[in-house]
């Protein structure tokens, strides 16, 4: 009797153990496995997102540094002012008339041209001037592409009745190129 009762108890324990084992296997297969797969996927996604965030942060820092250097670095500010500012007729007129000791400026014509391969825009300015002396003409030509000017021009062509024997007043036609920026 005692043996039968003990056998019965043992069978009950084995039964419980088997049920528990089956439940464990089902749970592991349907639930834990799915959680594990999600975990792997989420880890991968997080790594990708972090990498993307790091790249974007680096790019943002670069742009922020550029913005700060534009506002603080004098050379950068001047380069943009000389070659990368908007096309403004008032600024062009101010620069042409900026230094005119002994120079009379007769005509100015201003023309917008097209975009260059370097993505800047090109403007063409023609100026007719009268200079009291050749030296003053020279001084004016130097001023046009100097750092003192608010726009730095490329002198494309100059023509005047040069006479090396005399130093009479001269009338000169000057063709200038200017660089500017437009979106």
């Amino acid at each position, binding site marked *: 009797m005692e043996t039968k009762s003990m*056998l019965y108890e043992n069978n009950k324990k084995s039964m419980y153990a088997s049920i528990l084992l089956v439940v464990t296997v089902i749970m592991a297969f349907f639930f834990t496995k799915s*959680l594990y797969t999600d975990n792997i996927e989420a880890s991968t996604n997080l790594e990708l997102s972090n990498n993307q965030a790091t790249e*974007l942060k680096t790019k943002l820092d670069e742009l922020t540094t550029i913005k700060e250097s534009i506002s603080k670095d004098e050379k*950068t500010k001047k380069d943009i002012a000389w070659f990368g500012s908007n096309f403004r007729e008032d600024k062009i007129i101010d620069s042409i008339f900026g230094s005119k000791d002994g120079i009379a400026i007769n005509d100015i014509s201003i023309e917008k041209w097209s975009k260059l391969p370097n993505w800047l825009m090109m403007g063409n300015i023609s100026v007719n001037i009268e200079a009291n002396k050749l030296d003053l003409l*020279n001084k004016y030509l130097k001023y046009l592409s100097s750092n003192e000017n608010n726009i730095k021009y*490329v002198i494309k062509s*100059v*023509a005047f009745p040069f006479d090396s024997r005399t130093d009479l007043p001269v009338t000169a036609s000057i*063709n200038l190129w200017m660089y500017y920026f437009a979106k």
Partner: protein
Amino acid sequence: MEKTNLRNNTEENQDMTATLKGKSWVYLTISIILFTLVIIASIYLYVSNLNLWKSIEKAKSDITGFQDQITKLENNSEILAYNTVKLAIPEIEKNILASQVYIYIDELKSISKKYSLDFSGFSYQDWKISTSAVSSLTKEKDSVEKISRLIKDYRDENKNMFVLSPVSNISWDYLKRSFEISFELSK
């Protein structure tokens, strides 16, 4: 004899039962341990997933924020201008340097003095200078010599600011020799 056999059988049964009892406990214990491990692993994975999803949301939010700021800065005209100017600056400065006409006018004045030639007219375009030279002396030999010396110096030496273009015509006008002269800028 029978009593001994019966006792032996009982003892055998007891041993068997004890063995079965031990094995059942081990079996049950192992099942419980496995079940517990699976539960713990599931809870751990669940919590880990929650944290990961939270971190992913934060990273995505950061990405959106960064992209917005980058778009704003990239559309800033000053920054656009800066990037464009920065790339073009070497070419622009080269063009400005090559177009320093005031230097070429001074050089022409020096040439005039050095060779006692008179220049009339000045035209500068596309890195080329054109003028007319007049050599006027009463002695024709000296006048021609000056022209010849100029041409010789500009052909023999290559350190000059200008390169003399071919001189194709020298005309005679009683008191003076004159010729069209043009220079190109030395590279």
